[in-house]
């Protein structure tokens, strides 16, 4: 395998590992019902911390 091939394989495996960890994290968070309402938007919908409007 060429050097470029080795580097590409390492990068790809890294990306796959990150994707795997991300999916695992999401699954754990969702099943625990923490931090995410689970609707798929990925945010805690109840906690709206936007500054809001000024009147």
């Amino acid at each position, binding site marked *: 395998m060429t050097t470029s091939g080795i580097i590409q394989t390492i990068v*790809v495996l890294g*990306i796959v590992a990150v994707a795997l960890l991300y*999916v695992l994290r999401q699954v754990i968070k969702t*099943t625990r019902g923490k931090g995410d309402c*689970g609707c*798929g938007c990925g945010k805690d919908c109840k906690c709206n911390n936007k*500054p809001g*409007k000024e009147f």
Partner: protein
Amino acid sequence: MTENNNNTIRLLDHEPVGQTVQVVRVMGDGAFRQRLLEMGFVRGAKVTVLKNAPLRDPVEYMIMGSHISLRHSEAAQVEVTDRDAEFCDMEDAYQGIVETEVAAVDPMADNVLRVVLIGNPNCGKTSLFNNVTGAREKVGNYGGVTVDSKEGWFSIGGRRVQLVDLPGTYSLTEYSPEEMYVRTYIRDNHPDAILNIVDAGNLERNLYLTTQLMDMNIPMVVALNMWDELEKSGDRLDIEMLSRLLGARMVPLTAYNGHGVKDVLEATMATIDESEQETKHHNVNYGSLIEDSLKQLGEMCPTLDRYTVLKIIENDQHAIELLDSQSNGLEVKIAAADMRQRIERDYNSDITSIITDLKYGFVRGALAETLTPNPERAIEDTKPGYSMDRLLTNRWLALPILLVLMWLMFEATFTLGAYPQEWIENGIGWLGEWIGKAMPDGILKDLIVDGIIGGVGGVLVFLPQILILFFFISLLEDSGYMARAAFIVDRVMHRVGLHGKSFIPYLIGFGCGVPAIMATRTLENRRDRIVTILTVPFMSCSARLPAYLLLVAAFFTANQGLILMSIYLIGILIAALTAIVLSKTILKHDKTQFVMELPPYRKPTARNATIHMWSKGKQYLQKMATIILAASIIVWALGYFPRHDGQTPQEQIENSYMGQMGKAIEPIVAPLGFNWQMGVSVLTGAAAKEIVVSTMGVLYTGESDATEESASLKEKLQTATKPNGEHVFDPIVAYSFMLFILLYFPCIAALAAIRREAGTKWMVFEIFYTTAVAWIVSFIFYQVVARLI
């Protein structure tokens, strides 16, 4: 007290359409009776029979300007008499206000200025919340959209204030979960002010809740929402006098366009500022007998507020439980029971009816002084939208119209969405081709072209259809038609053992199962809740839509809208059958009664529909960039490794981890007409249903030759062949696959919601039950129905 003896007392369910009668009393006891009283079925109230639903049940009634749907069996609990019977006790009920000294409070004691929004369902709380905080919470022209508290912030005069949107409620009794939620929230969080939103066009019913809030002795401002509609109707309201009579600031508001928002907030801040000094709070005057009892009991338990003391007299179990921690608790309970008996004897009625009648009498008296109805105002039948209502709920036309509207929605999703879909498809094809040429061959190029572009691109192309579908749903919801759809099909729901309130979770379920499962919190009976929770996933959520769109477009050339609609209808049918089986076996229980309010027809606004559409589109894109991207990468890796030299792409993918996994489950899915790629796709769909399509995108891209890289997934599925040269897909396999996707177990997020709301046992049941149903239905279709066609 006078009883009218000249008129015959009859039951409401016997009254013909068009008849107006007066309520004498509501029979029975418990939650249903309480709810009817709260919604205005009080002694002397006039009620008009408007129409029967197309299937003869339920019946639409008008009371206090609201349209209420009651089944015949429920209306049979209301005794009525001829109109214009005299009920002197009602006329005498208004006895003004009493003043209570309220100690000064420091609004910043907990470092947060907190204002809570409270009002009847569908009075515009969330519209105001969104307007003030800049949030994008879901609003709809029907009650029950908000089931939880939502928090947001705004700034005024340099001060930062937290605004809390609470679920809509008709009262603060102990009978339904949303009532208890609001009551407990106020007790536990001590808001600095209540912002009570009332529908200015329906003051009599809305101000009933205001009378309860007044007793809580918390600074309060009343926002008269939908003020524009009141002005248009020609009615005149003396706001200043009504403010004086009720002892609370009142401000006109039109929340949907923001008119009056600043005035409402300024009034709220002024009220909070006043509470920093010792003030006099205004309460409803219930007459000397009850006022003396309140005073006497209040002295026995000085830590409790007037509202709780009144609830103790009313025999409210949650309020009585608070006495357990008091040293003189038993003494107070005995005294309260004595007082209750004396009041009931004196008024010759039960305590619930007495207090409700007095509150409504107070409101009626205040409005008699301040509200001048327009004598030339159109009668209800000629109000805008009402002539249309006669057509939409017509006995013979209502169901065909409902089906045609559904068909139109699905057909438009297909035909209008096809053009932008083609542009996106071309763009993705071009991108794949360009990267294919620009990058040297290698594993990284395979990941980007086959994994990321093939997977995410396959799902992304359906964004236009998702947007169009939600645009139409938003129009139907905002117009008030969705609640009419519930009215039309209520009898069917009743027959299958479903609760009328289940309609709202089902409706939300067409968008996403998670908020739909949470929306079942409004159901009082736990068995009703569980039946609804277990059947909601059969309402096809928007995440399954890309799979249907892909397969219908690829394998059905005609009647695409009809085919798509049939999938949704089969989901509804399976939900109904499941509900029948569950409610007659393991979840057997008496049918719960339910009063549904029919919202007025309103012109849907482009702004609202666009906001709804955009919020769904944003969620879809966010999912693309996160979970679907990650899942596509994993699926690609499982289909790419291990590598073997000298194999064709077909052999390579069949020998991959994914291929081995697919081959292992192939015997289970083969009787349904599925190959291993389809079997693997439904498995990966557990994370999110869109991943079914992205997995197919990855697996079929990997299988294709380099020259086909620019072909769309649709074309690849059309040309996919088995080793024997036969096509993998035909319309029968595609439909069988769609049935399986429709019915099999919900995604992880929905399962987690089921576990939270119903428990682990029911979540496990749901996984096995839905998968078994999906397998059996697909099997019957593929093996039996397909052979008959």
